[in-house]
């Protein structure tokens, strides 16, 4: 089965490079190219591709906004963010907006193919370069407690420690203790990394993250 793909990037050289990667793969079909967010959104609505590769920074709507629109409309198009920025906050923002993949533009054709195939099947793909620790394949994380999972999910949704504490009827101090324990168990150094690692190891799912409060 061929995967129908839309590619949106305002930079023509990069766009043609990526387009070539995609065309070379036999199981992929490049159905449209767009050079800004608005055009991408129009073409997604019209062509309903299986996968949309979106640059984050584009004139008009940025990639995250387009992803949010796709998510809000409940479309089946899987979004992969394609960017030259390695900020983890972009990853989190993209995932919250419903993206299932986050890939840097320096990606190799092989990795890009993997990413597209993974999200097309409903999986989650994050560029290993985004969080360096995530490249360690043989790490097996310790099981999180129920409370710890709750704390992690609320924190991932952007709640501050104070708000998490209020939400779970525990003290702020306890929230900090839980977070420290979560970092320890996942081998992360901060909240964002903890969330990304938890997603990677399947400790939490993207659906849980996207659930409304």
């Amino acid at each position, binding site marked *: 089965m061929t995967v129908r793909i839309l590619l949106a990037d305002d930079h023509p050289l990069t766009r043609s490079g990526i387009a070539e990667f995609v065309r070379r793969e036999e199981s992929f079909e490049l159905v449209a190219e767009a050079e800004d967010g608005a055009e991408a959104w129009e073409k997604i609505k019209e062509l309903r591709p299986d996968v949309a590769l979106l640059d984050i920074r584009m004139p008009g709507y940025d990639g995250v906004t387009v992803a949010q629109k796709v998510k809000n409309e409940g479309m089946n198009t899987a979004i992969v963010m394609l960017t030259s920025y390695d900020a983890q906050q972009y990853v989190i923002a993209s995932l919250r907006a419903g993206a299932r993949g986050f890939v840097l533009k320096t990606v190799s054709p092989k990795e890009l193919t993997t990413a597209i195939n993974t999200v097309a099947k409903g999986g989650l793909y994050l560029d290993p370069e985004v969080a360096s620790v995530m490249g360690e394949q043989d790490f097996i994380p310790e099981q999180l407690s129920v409370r710890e999972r709750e704390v992690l999910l609320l924190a991932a949704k952007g709640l501050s420690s104070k708000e998490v504490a209020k939400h779970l009827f525990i003290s702020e101090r306890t929230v900090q203790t839980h977070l420290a324990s979560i970092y320890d168990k996942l081998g992360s*150094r901060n909240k*964002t990394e903890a969330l990304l690692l938890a997603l990677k190891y399947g400790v939490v799912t993207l659906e849980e993250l996207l659930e409304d409060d």
Partner: protein
Amino acid sequence: MLSFLRKKFAGSGSHFLAFLLCALILPSAAVVLVAVTGMVSQEQAMEGAVSSYVQDLAESLSYHLSSDSDVWTFSMLSDFTRFPFFSWGPSIPGWVALIGQDGRVIISSPGSMNKIVSIWRNDLPIGQAVRVEDRQGAQYTLAVYPVKRPSGGYVVAAVSWTQLLGGLVSIVRIWPLLIVAMALLSFFAIRLLWSRVIAPLRNLASEIDSMTLGKDVPEKLPEGSIQEIYSVHNALQRYAQAAVERDNLRNRYVRDVVQAQEQERMDMAREIHDGALQDVTALLQQIHMIADDENKTTRLKRSEIIAKAVVKELRAFCDELAPPWMDLGVNEAITELAERLSQAYDIVIMTDYDEGTDDAEIENDKILSLLRIIQEAVSNAVRHGYATEVNIELRREDDMLVLDISDNGKGFDSSNINHETLRVEGHRGLASMTERMSLMGGTLRITSKVGEGTEIKASLKV
């Protein structure tokens, strides 16, 4: 006088000074005029009074002595001697004498002869009062009246002004002295007014006129001016001094900014030259060698590694120049920076955001200045304070966004910290942060105590 003053002060526009002078000169002139008029009319009144007195005296005597006979009867002469001039004790003032046609003195009141001789003039008219002066300058009036007798004869009457009018005469003498004194006093008052008030005021005015604020400081006022002008001048001096200092500070600040900009350009050039440029050169060499190399795969692999390194380096470089993730919102931007700094310095950085910090639409330049403050604060905390833990808190206080950064470093004495000391001591980063915050209408406060870490509080209106 007025037109002269008007001319003198025209142009400078300071009519006030002209009016001030007039206010002093006009009353003085009026007083002198009144005094002179008073003096002249008093003199006239006195002269009239003395003249009619002497005329009355001479006339009534000559009337008494008039007769158809030429014989002087005893009763006539005894009548004459009954006039009070001849008795001792209180008597009416004056001297009288009866002189015959031949010039002989027939009879005279005591002391008359000496007095009359001393003031006698040969051109005296008959039947008129004449004012004369003796050698000492004393005033007298005398009158000569004819006696109606066949043999003729004259009555001579004289009176001394001081004798008749007493103190009034000396007052007339004092009048001119008083007027001169009055004029002199006015002159000195005007001179004083000129040297103490008007001249200093004019100097002050021209000084203010020619002064360039921020460049000149007025010179010290010469001694001898009034207190009020001193106060105004001192205030002007302080104001000008402050303006000069403010200008100097601004100039130094601009110079610092320019220097920092140039330094930054040099750093950027070096970084690109030593990093990306070297890498791309290496990449180009690899590509050149690919063409005539049998082991193309190895060369290509190497090229890929180099290209990836260039991208990574340039990306880090761009992040350093202007973090692109600002557009995600202030909380996300701070979290991203905090996590990066935490990894770069290998310290714990906690972030906490109050409700509502993400609601407000905050301009990117405000977010950027908050990020720069965090960067600077964390860098200082680690490098100078040897901190291992930094807490970053962001909260809303009404329409203010408050950023609180505290560390567990060794701290310093912040009691006398200000922009200038920061600048001088080389904390140019924090100094320019303070400046930047004030430019955006915010504030930056640094509190620290030795051994108690440092707290930086930045407040911004959003």
